[in-house]
């Protein structure tokens, strides 16, 4: 009786089309205008440092009393001269060298210390993690400059030493970053699989963990180099740097001390420092976008409106008759994709639900059933676009007016979500969130609301309702949380409940009880329900009418007896066959 799928069917399954191979990172960066500009500027700084001996018109420490405070564009002094007649351009050019060296010292030290310790702490956990976190907290608890000032008393003007110490001071940023990435990767099943396969810890770290870490570390490095340049300039500016060697910070300091005589003088070092730091920060942001985002941008409101106007709207024949609690007509929902296109996920769906009817919406993942549920409540994700359609309730089209949708939500239509624990606000007690939610849609005093809710909590099967009222979500179990959510949904007396896989996350024994509860509530209160599920057993248990969805369309709709006894569509038959192949069929005993 059960149809077992054949091997040929299995072999005909093909993988999805390969996405176009992405170009190497550096090319992608240069293709963006911000990327090209920042990289160009940073190259300019490097060139300035490497070729300072060519670019600088005069030696940087050469004083010339004839050209004291020379303005920019003076002969021999393109950027002007400072209060000792020294050429600013030369000083800045030569000053680029210690700047770059200092920044590299910071980078190397912080990466060595921070990344290695983060890897060890994240992978081996236990004491390594405890010690590492404590040390990291200690290091981060002092402002860097104060420590560098203290260091000065020991070393005197020694910028490389100061930069090495600063490298240690910023290592905690790498530590925290790497540790958290490694902890996440370590929990991934593919690491477990590698261990089972027999990989040693070193191979696992080398092959699986390091790869996941490299992206965030590269991004962070851009910011760290920027910080290094900033702090080095600052330390020099305060006068803690080497007075004999010019650097960006000392040029700034000289210019600032001379600001009343030559105000413009501060501009050049300020610009050079700021632009270099900004370029690095922007580059870091661009790297983050390239390496971590999915490339999908939500559409602007204007684009959304244009799409909604353009898509072909089915002519509505008439307002559907009032015998339905809710009537959906021609609903089309789409989502933006990488590359600026949109993909339709619901292709014009019609659905009717009568008062008191439990209507099952069945389909596999990607069929679009949850999208319909969210649309009735107006809680689709921000990036979703409702291309067209209407949802009729009490003679009004909810989709035509956002306010109507908002006012129907909660008071006329209730929502029971799938995952109980993540759908309760962790900062408030159960009682507080239920009361607040109820009083938001029905005007009643706190006392009245509390009394009603307590009674309702008991009705949904929670004993000690008063005790639970005072508890926080993290203190109750999953089954209880789901009952609390059901209570929250029906408390305001809605006519329709939209339940999105309400029992999928529950144990099977609890599932049976919750289904029983939903059925009883529906009968008692004349509640209609749209029950989204992938489980045909649930449908057979509780639903009156069933709509089968596939790839964004309803392929079959029938009352529950007819659908199971004589399914018309091949897809429905396949669903039933697969479902029954894994069931406990009662033997004739």
């Amino acid at each position: 009786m059960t149809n077992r799928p054949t091997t040929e069917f299995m072999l005909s399954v093909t993988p999805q089309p390969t996405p176009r191979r992405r170009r190497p990172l550096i090319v992608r960066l240069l293709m963006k205008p911000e990327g090209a500009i920042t990289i160009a500027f940073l190259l300019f700084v490097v060139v300035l440092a490497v070729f300072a001996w060519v670019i600088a018109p005069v030696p940087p420490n050469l004083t010339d009393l004839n050209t004291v405070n020379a303005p920019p564009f003076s002969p021999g002094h393109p950027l002007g001269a400072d209060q000792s007649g020294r050429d600013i351009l030369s000083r800045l050019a030569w000053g680029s060298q210690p700047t770059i060296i200092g920044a590299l010292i910071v980078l190397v030290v912080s990466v060595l210390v921070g990344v290695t310790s983060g890897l060890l702490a994240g992978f081996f956990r236990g004491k390594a993690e405890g010690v590492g976190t404590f040390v990291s907290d200690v290091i981060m608890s002092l402002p860097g400059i104060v420590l560098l000032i203290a260091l000065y008393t020991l070393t005197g003007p020694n910028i490389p030493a100061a930069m090495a110490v600063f490298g240690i001071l910023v290592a905690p940023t790498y530590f925290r970053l790497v540790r958290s990435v490694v902890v996440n990767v370590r929990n991934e099943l593919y690491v477990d699989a590698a261990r089972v396969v027999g990989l040693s810890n070193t191979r696992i770290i080398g092959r699986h963990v390091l790869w996941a870490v490299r992206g965030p570390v590269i991004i962070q490095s851009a910011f760290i180099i920027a910080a290094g340049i900033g702090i080095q300039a600052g330390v020099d500016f305060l006068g803690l740097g080497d007075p004999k060697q010019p650097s960006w910070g000392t040029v700034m300091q000289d210019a600032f001390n001379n600001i009343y005589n030559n105000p413009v003088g501060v501009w050049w070092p300020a610009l050079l420092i700021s632009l270099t730091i900004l370029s690095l920060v922007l580059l870091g942001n661009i790297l983050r976008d390239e390496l971590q985002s999915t490339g999908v941008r939500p559409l602007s409101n204007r684009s959304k409106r244009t799409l909604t106007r353009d898509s072909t709207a089915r002519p509505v024949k008439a307002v559907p008759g009032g015998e339905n609690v809710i009537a959906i007509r021609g609903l089309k929902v789409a989502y933006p994709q990488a590359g600026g296109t949109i993909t339709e996920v619901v292709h014009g769906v019609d659905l009717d639900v009568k008062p008191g009817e439990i209507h099952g919406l069945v389909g596999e993942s990607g069929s679009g059933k949850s999208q319909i549920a969210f649309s009735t409540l107006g809680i689709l994700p921000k990036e979703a676009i409702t291309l067209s359609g209407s949802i009729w309730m009490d003679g009004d089209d909810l989709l035509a007016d956002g306010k109507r949708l908002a006012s129907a939500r909660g008071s006329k239509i209730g929502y029971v979500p799938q995952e109980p624990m993540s759908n309760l606000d962790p900062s408030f007690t159960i009682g507080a969130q239920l009361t607040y939610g109820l009083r938001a849609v029905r005007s009643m005093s706190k006392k009245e609301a509390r009394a009603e809710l307590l009674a309702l909590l008991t009705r949904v099967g929670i004993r000690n309702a008063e005790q639970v009222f005072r508890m926080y979500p993290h203190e109750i179990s999953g089954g209880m949380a789901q009952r609390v959510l059901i209570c929250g949904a029906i408390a305001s007396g809605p006519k329709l409940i939209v339940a999105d896989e309400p029992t999928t996350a529950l144990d099977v024994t609890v599932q049976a009880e919750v289904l029983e509860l939903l059925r009883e509530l529906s009968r008692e209160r004349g509640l209609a329900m749209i029950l989204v599920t992938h489980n045909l057993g649930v449908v057979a248990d509780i639903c009156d009418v069933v709509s089968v969805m596939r790839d964004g369309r309803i392929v079959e709709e029938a009352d529950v007896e007819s659908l199971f006894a004589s399914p018309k569509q091949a897809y429905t038959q396949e669903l039933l066959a697969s479902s029954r192949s894994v069931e406990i069929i009662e033997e004739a005993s």
Partner: protein
Amino acid sequence: MLTMSILKKLARAIAVFLVVTFVTFCMMFGNGAGIARGVLGLDAQPSDVQKEVVKLGLDQPLLVQYGKWLLGVVTGNLGQSYFTGQSVNEALASRVPVTLSLVIATLILTLVLSVAIGVTAAIFGGWIDRVVQFFTVLGAAVPAFIIAVGLVFAFAIALPLFPATGYVALSDDPTAWLHSIALPVIALLIGSVASAAAQIRGAVLDVQGRDFVRTLRARGIPEGPLLFRHVLRSASGPGLTVLSLQTIALLGGAVFVEQIFALPGIGQLANTSAQQGDVPIVMGIVLVTIVFVLVVNLLGDLANAALNPKARTR
């Protein structure tokens, strides 16, 4: 239990205090001969240097010296300046209020502005968000001392609206105090708000995407109360972390700002004392700084426990 967790945090803060002060102490008092030479002058005779080392107590083992210093901290005696002989307490007493008034004023303004800007950017999105992102990147990247110099240029020289230097105590003349502190605070504020607003925006966006927000919306709670009662409550934890990190950054920035605006605070004192080699004073300033940071962190943790029930059990 709440008291248990507070005691644990207190113990941890004390541990951090001890480690930081010990490491800095060793770093600064480690080179006894160098310090003595700094006090006497570079051309001092080795025999004189040795005498000075003993006189200043620098020949004893570091652990002993640290122990004595710690004892002094507890009894309220932080030592004396090597150069002026003035007690460190006195030197700090007049200067700590200056730095505190600068930092606390900036902190309060940062709190208000960054929350307003970060939340607005997160909920409105669109062009407002893009503008905010642009300015936060700019403000957070440019170092505070460069902003300060720029402000001096713009508002003290080009348009002489504010004094470029000088400080008037709050107790002496409130309006003059405001006037003297305006530019320094703005210099610190720009970077501080930029950085904090970006992180708060991130925290709010993160909470907004969570399941329970969608469920509460489905229950019929209007957007306004949803935001202020539920979203901000959950975002407050990360928000407080951001603000306590900002305090540390502000103390660092204060060092530069005091130098530029010639404010007689502990930052300026630290700089001049370090260049002289007046180690006890620098050590005293490190002490004040670390205590301030730890106190602010502890307050932040307490506030977090009050707002976030899960944090109480940790």
